[in-house]
């Protein structure tokens, strides 16, 4: 497998992990909204909290994490951009 192919394999892996986490915070938890709402977080009913703040914060953190991971992968295989590309 060439360097490029290995890089793409890892990139794909990261994409899949990212989308799994995305699925959990975007969909999975809201399938059980009424169960979640029986518990609370910071005084808010949990399902309410998750769509008002929780999931949104999770998405922000997820994208920052993804961007850093992807940069590491690019570095590992020597595909980092040069300054004046």
């Amino acid at each position, binding site marked *: 497998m060439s360097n490029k192919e290995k890089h793409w394999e890892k990139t794909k892996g990261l994409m899949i992990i990212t989308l799994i986490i995305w699925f959990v915070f*975007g969909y999975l938890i809201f399938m059980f909204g009424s169960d979640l709402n029986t518990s609370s977080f910071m005084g808010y*009913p949990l399902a309410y909290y998750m769509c008002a703040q929780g999931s949104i914060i999770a998405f922000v953190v997820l994208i920052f994490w993804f*961007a850093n991971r992807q940069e590491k992968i690019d570095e590992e295989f020597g595909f980092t951009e040069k300054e004046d590309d």
Partner: protein
Amino acid sequence: MFKGNFIDNLPKIYGTYTGGFFIFIILMAIAEQAGMTAKTIGILFVAFTVCIYAIIGYLSRTVQVDAYYVAGRQVPTVFNGMATAADWMSGASFVAMAGGIYFGGYTYMAFLVGWTGGYVLVSSLLAPYLRKFGCYTVPDFIGTRYGGNFARFCAVVVLTLASFTYVTAQINATGTIASRALSIPFELGVWVGLVSILLCSMLGGMRAVTWTQVAQYIVLIIAYLIPVFWISNKSGFGFFPHFMLGEEVARLGALESQFGLVKNAAADIKAAGVPGGLKSIAVSHAGVPEGGMAAWKFISLALCMMVGTASLPHILMRYFTTPSVKAARKSVAWSLFFIALLYTSAPMLATLSKISLIDPNLPTGIIGKPIAEIMQIEWVNAWINVKQAFIADFNGDGILQLNEWFMRGDVVVLATPEVAGLPYVISGLVAAGGMAAAMSTADGLILAIANALSHDIYYKIIDPKADVRKRLLVARALLIVIGAAGAYIASMRITSILGAVAWAFDFAMSGLFFPLILGVWWKRATRQGAIAGMIAGLASGTAYLIYVYPKFMGNAPWLGIDHLRFGIIGASVCLVVMVVVSLMTEEPDKATQQMVDEVRVPSGKTILGKQH
């Protein structure tokens, strides 16, 4: 100051700008104390900010193609994040979102999840690859990846349809705000709004829009956060509302069961003469509706908004302006961060507004009190006079019940400062913020359409030999034509703000989502597949919309997929058709496959040249 070292000076420039804006707010507050009328303050707020945007637009004028289309690809990560956030948060987000939560509660908040989660798709599936491609517009990518003018043309059609549905709503919002703040008729307000929008984008294209959008983001976020924090502190709900409103949310639940959530019969509403568009609270604030269908409706709406986000060209094209692929990825994260500042505040504002109005123990509360007494309150009178609020004493007991108080959703953002007894300067600030939000989105959308038509249709298909001067002339002429068309439709008042906004997402996802991602992630995707997918997706989505929308054919939605969610049908059809047709046709040639390989790594030259 805008020459030479401009990029390095950005933090200083926008820092000064922010400071200047705060000084302006303080001056207005002093002027209010000195007896300046509310009307003058409103006019000054809107006029002052719009003038600043126009000046930025003028200073950013350009005669370079790459500056006009992609801001010269030198917008730093964080600033591009702010510009994207302004591009993204429309008049609807700013003015109508808190109102939507106020009336729709948890169910409505599917929009919040949907309008943020889409950025995960943008960052992991699309933005970095499109940046590496080096395209000027989204159809530019489709046209080059799949080859041929027809694929390019189909992408332009989808882009235009989706963006145009969206832009009329934005011009509508600028018109509403301009007419209210400047006390002019709505039809005139629409044209005033359009002129303001064009001042920002005409001379400098993407470069001018970028730098005005950053300025607009600063205004809109200040205008949204100050009232939220101020109200929360003034009314004693907590110093930091986002972490401290748990008790109030619980109290709302108790009040809901005390007053009862009554859904008024349509006949009663009609008999009482409630003006159109006004609603009463009939849905629980934080309660989750029971059952699988309710959960599916929540999830399917979030899905449409997320996939739509990742297909909307005016958002994707913002990531063409970063200096590198790496910066494009980071920039998506910053965009969502800046968006989250407002989106996490909207539910808090809705909570504050609701508790202020419906808790009879609070001095601001109106529910459960005698109607004669409430009619004496100044703000109640003012909003009833302009038909934005209404009282209908259904049971004739002279006491205002929860289901007897009607208001328009926008009132939540526009009137809550007044209800909580904040000075008028805050209402002026909110008007300026709403104007900034609607203008920035309208600018991004009009530019997306005009760029696609001028670059992809005029330059790439009609006249590939056109020189730079002619190309930019055509681009600017189209900007005016599209803006005018949008303003004309908006002035006819045929769409309500939210219906149309959701449709734009559904149109975009029906036609563009799979051709875009498969273009990067599936080498086997062919031209014929992409063309068939775009046509079939858009056609089936549109057909389903006509089939299900109450004002068209009005048939019962299939599996709860109503007119807000028709993109699910369109995108599924698009995927199936695109895969089947791609597999039936010959695989793309070596050059195309190599191009896809190149797109997948950040290093190296962009596929399309710096100037093309």
